[in-house]
C-alpha cells in the first residue's frame, strides 16, 4: 500500500490510505479503553504542534494522540510565538525545521500554510485546519464515525447544515464523503452557501424542514455569533427559527438518522438543548473517534 508523506487534504489522499486509517483507528479505539492508554509505536519521535490560529480542542486532541503513541510533543502557538515579534511565516517554518521534528501538525487562519510548510521541512506535515480550506482529520473522524455506525459510506445521504461558506469542515467532508460514494447535500442561509457549490455535485437546500426528511447523516456546523454582525444573517434568533435542530424537527427525522457536530456545540442555537440527551452521546463519541483517528494518522505517517 502506498505510503504518503503528508496529510494536507483529502483530495490528494488515496482511498486505500484512508481505508487503512479507518482500520488502524479501530485498533486505537481499543487502546483507548485500556487502563494504560499508551503504546510505544512513536517512541523517540517528536511531534510539533504548530498552531498559528488558536485552538484548544484540536490541539489537545493531537497532543494526546501523540502522547498515547509515546511520542514527545512540543506545542508552538501564536500567543507565545515569535511571529508576534515580527518573524515572518517562512522564517518561523525554517526555525521549526531546525528542531528536527518527525511530524509537524499545523493550523493557520490562512489557507495553504501546511502546503508551504511541506516544502520547507523533512518532517511529515499534518493539516489541522488551514483557514476556510481544509480540515482533513475532522472529515476522517466524521467518516469513521458514520462507517462504524452504518457499516458503509457508499450510497448514504449526508446533509451538512450551517455556515458552509466559512467552513473547512464542510469542504473536507464534501470531498471525503463523495470520494467514498455518499450523496452530500448542504443546507443553510443563502448568504452562507457559496453560489457555485452545486457545480461540486452537491444539492442545495435553503429549507431545513424539507432537507432533513430522508437523510441518513446530518452534520450540524457551528454558527459563529459574529456572523450576525457581519451582514450574512440578520440575527441568531432567525437562524435558530430556520436552521436549528429543535425537538419538532428531530421527531420528523428518518429513524436511525445520525446527528453529528464537529463541536463545540452552541446549544439552543444549532441544536436544541431539549434533545441533548439523544444527540450528545454520538457527538462525544466523535471526539473519542477523533483521538483514535489522529493516532492512526500519526502512526501511519511515521512509517515513512
Amino acid at each position, binding site marked *: 500500500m502506498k505510503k504518503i508523506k503528508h496529510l494536507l487534504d483529502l483530495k490528494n489522499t488515496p482511498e486505500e490510505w484512508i481505508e487503512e486509517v479507518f482500520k488502524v483507528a479501530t485498533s486505537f479505539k481499543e487502546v483507548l479503553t485500556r487502563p494504560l492508554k499508551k503504546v510505544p509505536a512513536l517512541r523517540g519521535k517528536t511531534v510539533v504542534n504548530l498552531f498559528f490560529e488558536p485552538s484548544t480542542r484540536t490541539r489537545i486532541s493531537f497532543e494526546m494522540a501523540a502522547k498515547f503513541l509515546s511520542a514527545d510533543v512540543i506545542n508552538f502557538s501564536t500567543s507565545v510565538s515569535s511571529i508576534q515579534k515580527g518573524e515572518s511565516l517562512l522564517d518561523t517554518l525554517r526555525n521549526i525545521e531546525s528542531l528536527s521534528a518527525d511530524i509537524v501538525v499545523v493550523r493557520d487562519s490562512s489557507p495553504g500554510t501546511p502546503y508551504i510548510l511541506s516544502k520547507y521541512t523533512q518532517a511529515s506535515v499534518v493539516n489541522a485546519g488551514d483557514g476556510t480550506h481544509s480540515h482533513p482529520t475532522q472529515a476522517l473522524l466524521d467518516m469513521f464515525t458514520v462507517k462504524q455506525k452504518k457499516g458503509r459510506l457508499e450510497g448514504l445521504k449526508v446533509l451538512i447544515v450551517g455556515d458552509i461558506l466559512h467552513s473547512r469542515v464542510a469542504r473536507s467532508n464534501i470531498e471525503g464523503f463523495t470520494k467514498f460514494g455518499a450523496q452530500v447535500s448542504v443546507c443553510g442561509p*443563502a448568504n452562507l452557501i457559496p453560489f457555485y457549490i452545486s457545480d461540486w455535485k452537491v444539492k442545495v437546500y*435553503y429549507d431545513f424542514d424539507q432537507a432533513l426528511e430522508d437523510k441518513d447523516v446530518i452534520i450540524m456546523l457551528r454558527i459563529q455569533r459574529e456572523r450576525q454582525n457581519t451582514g450574512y444573517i440578520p440575527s441568531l434568533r432567525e437562524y435558530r427559527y430556520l436552521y436549528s435542530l429543535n425537538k419538532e424537527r428531530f421527531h420528523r427525522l428518518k429513524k436511525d438518522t445520525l446527528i453529528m457536530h464537529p463541536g463545540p456545540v452552541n446549544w439552543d442555537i444549532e441544536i436544541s438543548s431539549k434533545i441533548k440527551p439523544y444527540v450528545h452521546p454520538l457527538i462525544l463519541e466523535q471526539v473519542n473517534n477523533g483521538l483514535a483517528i489522529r493516532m492512526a494518522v500519526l502512526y501511519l505517517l511515521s512509517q515513512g
Partner: protein
Amino acid sequence: MKSLIIKGAKVIDIINKDFYKKDVLVEGGKIKLISKNIKKKNSRCKIIDAQGLYLFPGFIDLHCHIREPGREDKESIKTASLSAQWGGFTTILSMPNTEVCLDTPEKISSFVNAVKSDSTINIYPCGALTQGRKGQKICEYALMMKEGALAFSDDGNWIEDSSVMMLALNYLSSLGGLCISHCEDAKLTWGPGRDDLLSFKLGLLPFFELSESLSVSRDIHIASFLKARLHLTHISTGSSLEIIKKAKVQKFISCDTCPHYLILDNSYLEDFNTNFKVNPPLPSEKDRKTLIKGLKEGVIDCITTDHAPHTLEEKESSFLDAPSGMIGLQTLFGLCFKYLVEEGLIDIFTLIEKITINPARILKMDSKGVIEEGKDADLVLVDLNEEFIFREQDILSSSKNTPFVGWRLKGKVKYTICGGDVVYKE
C-alpha cells in the same frame, strides 16, 4: 351564511377585453357563482342592484404610506382604510418608513394586530429591507414573513452598498420573498426638479435621470445574477424604462409608476405649489409620454398611488423644505380613467389590469385580483359614466395634501366589497 347578490352589473373580462352582464353571488367571503339571473336563496341574502355599473376586482395598491405607528395624526390605519375603500381599493401594501420603522417581527406583528381591529379592508405590511432602513444590516425576513410581511422595501431610501443589496436580495429570494426597490442614488439628487431647461429656469436643481437609471441598472443586475424577484417602484424616466424593458425577458423583474407621472409633467411646478412636489419629481413631458407608452407595452406592470400623507403645516413650508408626496388613494382611479382611458391613451382593460391582476400576481395573492368563482370576494362597482369634481370635503384621509382638489375626475366608486362585506357604499 351571509350572502350577497350583485345583480345586473357589467362584469369585466380582462382576457377577452370585454364586459358581460352577469349576476355575481358572494358567499362566505368568496365569489360563489357567476351566472345569469341568480335567485335569492334566503332572507339573509342582500341584493345590490348594479344596473349601469361596472364590476371590477377590488383595486390593489402595491405602494402606500400609512403613518402608523408614530404619526397617526397624519394617517392612521383606520383613516387609510376609509380613504382606500372610497377609492375602490380592497388591498393595500403599507410601506415601512413609519417613524418607528417596521424592521422587526414584533413591529410587523403589532401592525397586523392593529389592522385586525381598525381596518375594514386588507392592509398588509411591507417590512424594511435593512434595519432602520439604514442600508447596512439585513432584517429577519423569515420571522417577519411569518408575522405577515408580504414584501420588503427600504422605500424612501436606496441601498447604496452593493454588497448589502446582494446579501439582502440573495437571502430574501431564498425565502421566496419579494423586494420592492426605491431606485434613487441620493448623491445624484441635487434638488426637486428634473434635469431639463424648465427646472433650470425655475431655479430647481435636478434629480438627475442618472440617479434613477443607474440605481435601476444596478438593482436589476444584482437581481439577474441571483435570479431573484425584484419590483422597481415609482419609475419616472424613459431611460429607466429602457433598462427595465431589456431585463423583462427575465420573468422576475416588475415595476410600477404613479398617476402623477402619467398625467402631470414638471410644468406644473411653475407656481411652486408644494402639493406637486413628489419624489421622484414630476417628469418632463417627453418622459411622461414614454411612461404611457411603457404602460401600454406592458413594460410597466402596475399603477400605484405612492399615497404619501403630510400635514398642512408641513406642506406649507418653502418649496425646498416641504416634504415630498401627495395622497392618492381616492383619486387614482378617477384620474386614470378620465385622463388616460377617456383620452384614448390606454383602454379600460389595461387600466384595470394594472391595478388588480398584476399587483396580485406580483404579491403572489392567488385568490385576489380576478373575478372568478372560488376567488376572494374583493370587488368594486364603478359608475364609469359619472364625472365629478373632487372636493376637499371628499377627502377621508387625515392629510389633505393633494393637488387634485377641483379637478374633474371620471368613474365614481359606488360600492366597495371586501371579503364579501360591503365596506363602502356611496
